[in-house]
């Protein structure tokens, strides 16, 4: 599996820490086993009244082993956790690299934020794979083998018993638990989803449910879903508990077997009685050291699930054509053309664009208008090669978009998306996303142009721009675009949160900078469109009509009617 390949590669890169962790764990395990075995031997030995010095040697050895065990356990923990966090870092970077070409392609129209959060969570649960799944069995098996080797010096039969115990503790019991868990786990997940969906519905649809008298029925359903969820969760936990109990019983059974076998061998005379207590202690301790095996199945289940989901979302789409070599030159205005283009989002049932043909001559200014969901944004996404059309041809400067290098298109474009992203940092950081370097003076001038006079360059920006108002975000995004040197403008509702006057001021600045460039503007208000060369009206993924403002108004078609409705709007207010 490919996702495990990423994990393995990352683990190989962290081999030093991993090796140290394994060595530490091994020493700790061995020290623990020896410690208790030695105590058993020590006590048995006293029966024969040995000289005092042997006793002193033995007891000091016990203490040294105790300290050695604690110390190597410390080292193991330290290295194992370090390795885990380093793995996380490697996983993040490699998944990020894989996601770069896939975004926004793998993101559907709905809930893209959720998908991303899920990817982050899944990568995070993958990191546990090493700490909880991959390496505990290694240590358990190593400690067991060493014990087997050691006991075989006393009795080959007892050694065989330990081999059986090892197989049961390290493989059979966890395997059984995992099988049981797999059966239940899907159900738990499903019940959780059902419950979460229904609670969300209850909250979002509260007003409708209340008015339609459906609340009681809903609550009943929810109570039912809630107890079903608790039941499934309990069933899953019982599997783990059963595994733990089974592990304990195997431990007792093997210790008991050691006792019985030892008794038999002693009576046969083929085994010295002084070692009996020691081997019983050995058996009890070596299983104690194998305790992490009990929780392993749960983590294995989780990381497998995460890996599978990651494989489905991220790696399945991993078939990438090599990047085409044609470069879009950024020095001249660009012409764009769509020929019979259709597009459908993967998670949608209707096409977002149906057989759209449009030509944007070099240096033209086009506005695209239409109700939400009519496919306006999709056109920009297709032209930017962020998504690939389902059918039809797109040409930029008469070159098919398939032959153009993505990065060169982006390099040549100044883009303001509907929802711009802002990173944690300062206003300056967020303005200087591109490669260009500017002086603070130039940056401040741009802020002025974008009518963002109340902010200074050093003002902090929180994650996702949480501390900025919608209007401020839009103005920063506009300033960011105006700092670019492309000759192609894509503006997706860039001023929807600005008041009318600010909108006009910003727009004037923008149009003067883009005087000779090709510009596509999506807008929700139908004001100020008189200056555009052409207005394209869309509805349900189709072009309803196109023309200049004057032409469309005269035609008295779709645009005219939309305009009439807009004129009826009263009391609308935007941020000032």
């Amino acid at each position, binding site marked *: 599996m490919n996702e495990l390949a990423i994990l393995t590669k990352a683990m190989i890169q962290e081999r030093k820490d991993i090796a140290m962790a394994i060595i530490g764990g091994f020493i700790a395990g061995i020290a623990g086993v020896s410690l208790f075995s030695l105590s058993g031997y020590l006590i048995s030995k006293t029966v024969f009244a040995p000289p005092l010095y042997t006793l002193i040697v033995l007891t000091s050895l016990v203490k040294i082993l105790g300290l050695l065990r604690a110390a190597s356990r410390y080292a193991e923990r330290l290295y194992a956790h370090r390795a885990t966090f380093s793995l996380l*870092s490697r996983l993040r970077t490699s998944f990020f690299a894989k996601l770069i070409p896939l975004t926004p392609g793998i993101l559907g129209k709905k809930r893209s934020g959720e998908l991303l959060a899920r990817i982050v969570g899944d990568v995070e649960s993958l990191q546990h794979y090493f700490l909880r799944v991959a390496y505990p069995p290694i240590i358990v098996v190593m400690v067991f083998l060493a014990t087997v080797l050691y006991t075989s010096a006393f009795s080959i039969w007892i050694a065989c018993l330990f081999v059986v115990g090892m197989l049961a503790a390290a493989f059979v019991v966890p395997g059984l638990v995992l099988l049981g868990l797999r059966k239940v786990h899907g159900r738990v997940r499903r019940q959780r989803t059902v419950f979460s969906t229904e609670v969300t519905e209850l909250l979002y649809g509260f007003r409708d449910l209340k*008015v339609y008298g459906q609340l009681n029925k809903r609550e009943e359903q929810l109570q039912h879903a809630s107890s079903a969820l608790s039941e499934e969760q309990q069933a899953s936990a019982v599997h783990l508990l059963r595994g733990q109990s089974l592990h304990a019983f195997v431990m007792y059974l093997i210790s008991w077997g050691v006792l019985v076998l030892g008794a038999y061998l002693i009576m046969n005379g083929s085994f010295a009685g002084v070692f009996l207590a020691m081997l019983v202690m050995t058996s009890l301790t070596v299983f104690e050291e194998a305790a992490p095996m009990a929780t392993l199945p749960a983590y294995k289940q989780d990381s497998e699930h995460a890996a599978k989901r990651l494989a489905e979302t991220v790696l399945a789409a991993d078939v990438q054509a090599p990047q085409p070599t044609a470069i879009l030159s950024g020095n001249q205005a660009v012409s764009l053309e769509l020929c019979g283009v259709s597009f459908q989002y993967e998670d949608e*049932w209707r096409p977002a664009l149906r057989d759209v043909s449009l030509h944007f001559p070099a240096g033209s200014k086009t506005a695209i208008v239409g109700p939400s969901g009519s496919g306006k944004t999709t056109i920009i996404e297709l032209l930017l090669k962020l998504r690939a059309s389902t059918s039809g041809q797109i040409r930029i400067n008469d070159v098919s978009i398939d032959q153009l290098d993505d990065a060169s298109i982006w390099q040549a474009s100044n883009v303001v998306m509907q929802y711009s992203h802002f990173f944690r940092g300062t206003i300056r950081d967020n303005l200087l996303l591109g490669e260009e370097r500017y002086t603070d003076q130039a940056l401040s001038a741009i802020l002025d142009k974008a009518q963002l006079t109340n902010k200074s360059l050093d003002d902090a920006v929180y994650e996702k721009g949480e501390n900025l108002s919608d209007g401020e975000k839009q103005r920063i995004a506009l300033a960011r675009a105006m700092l670019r040197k492309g000759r192609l403008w894509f503006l997706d509702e860039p001023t929807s949160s600005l008041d009318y006057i600010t909108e*006009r001021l910003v727009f004037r600045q923008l149009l003067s900078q883009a005087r000779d460039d090709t510009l596509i503007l999506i807008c929700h208000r139908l004001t100020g469109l008189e200056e555009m060369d052409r207005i394209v009206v869309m509805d349900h993924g189709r072009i309803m009509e196109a023309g200049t403002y004057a032409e469309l108004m005269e035609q008295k078609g779709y645009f005219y009617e939309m305009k009439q409705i807009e004129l009826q709007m009263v009391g609308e207010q935007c941020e000032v």
Partner: protein
Amino acid sequence: MKKKTGLISEQMSAQRKRLVLLGGMSLALGAAIVGQAALLAESVEKIFVQRASFSSVAVILGILLAVMAARTLLSYGNGRIGLRMAASAKTDMRAALLRKLTRASMPAALRGQTGGKVSVALDAVDEADSYFSQYMPRMMEAAVIPILILVVVFTQHMNSGFIMLVTAPFIPIFMILVGLKTKNKSEEKFAQLAEFSGTFLDSLQGLVSLKLFGRARQHEQEIERSSIGYRDATMDILRIAFTNTFMLESIVMLGIGIVALELALQLLIFKSLSFHTAFLILLLAPEFYSLLKNTGTAFHSGRTSMGAIGKVEEMLAGTRDEGAVNPRREDGGITDGISGADRMITANKPGSDDMSLTRMPPIIELRDVRFRYAPDSFELAVGNISFGPGKHIAIVGKSGSGKTTLMHLIAGLLKPSSGEVLVNGTPLMHYDEDSWFGHVSYITQHPYIFAGTFADNIAIGAGRAVSRDDVVQAAAAAGLAAVASELEHGYDTLVGEGGRGLSGGEKQRLALARAFLKRPAVILFDEPTVGLDLQTERVLQQSIALLASKATMITVAHRLYTIRNADNIMFMGDGTLLGCGRHEELLDCLPEYAEMVDAHRKGGFA
């Protein structure tokens, strides 16, 4: 968390039987542990020291196996009780949460909080699990069994007992130290951790922007840098925790070592101890310490759980002052700030007025209605107004002026702080809630589409069993026939969450179809603020006119034609009724009104 919270003690008393059972089983488990050690020691003594014959130890060995099996079963049983306690506690907590959500009130400003509430109902409750399934059984075992072991050891050999008694308190002391130090350190590093941990998600969310700015590749380094930073900050915290664990384990090892040394000395030099006793103590010592050590892990998960339970309690308690934390929102879509004890007081009470007996459409009167969300928030105040049956009222005003709040008051979704809303002369609050809402349709800007079939979503409006024909008719009246034919299973296609998505215009029309099926006597209509597709706009205009012909309609109006056609306009400003009357009247006497109605259109032609 120092004292047990209310929810926990509630659960504890509800589950007292299980707790008693848990105590009894723990006692039995302790007996099994001691018994196992005693039998082990006995058999080794017989085989090794006394050289007894195999047949003479066979019985002991048989009993030993039985005790081992019993021990396994008892500890399994304890685990099962814990799980059962957890399951019923979780079900109870969720039930209480759901009751709170559905009964208590209209949740305030849902939009911002839905995620948080779902996460409390789901994740916080799940986190509470380990308090019952881990912490309680472990603590019970730790409270009972070590004492039992200690008693046995004391009866066998005083000195070992003393060693164990003296070393034991170090374990909880170190546990507490570990907890405190780690907590301090993690608080110290909190900002750093928060910054680093968010970077990956932040970068993924901004990936499109990064791509467009040609920065995606460089950002890989940023992710690596922050991940390594996160690692180092976390390792600093962990190192402290591990060092303390190291100390802890050393103490345990030292304790066992001292016990072993002491036993050997007694055996060899003073000859005051039998092998059997010595071996028994040697077997019991690790059991004793590991039980104490286990409480540490249990304690940790218990703490996390208690935090989660605290969150659940907060939500259960918090609804009352929800209005205070959630500022009023207007035109905000889904459900605006509605809160407070707004449930109709007499709902389902015998003797409450049955709406069906009174005249429909009703006369609606407002009598000095006042409302505020919280003591210090702005107050909505309207004087005395009366709307005749079948009248159409438009509520007009700037955003934030209290339009939606006023509508919710009239609808009975909010309870006035003072004053009354009268329907046919009787206070609205005296009516049975279901019976009142049986006559009301509320067409919001963002109607909620439930997960279910297209037909179900329309039929929800009826409040009664309806035939498919009725549904189809209502859909056709709302201009949805074409949409239904486009869906692959027609009216039986699943829509909403997990099903087919509908456009904003289609959702709006679906709300209309619901209203057509219901044939309400009162229509509450939140007119869309954004232009929808033309088809929806046309359907909306015609359908609303049709529906309103036999109903009293109250509209939060955003369109001039709605306002012009209204029988009565309530012009709101900052929560007060600035004026009331027909369009022309208000134009004449209220300059603010004239200004507002004109302002936008002037802008459009500028």
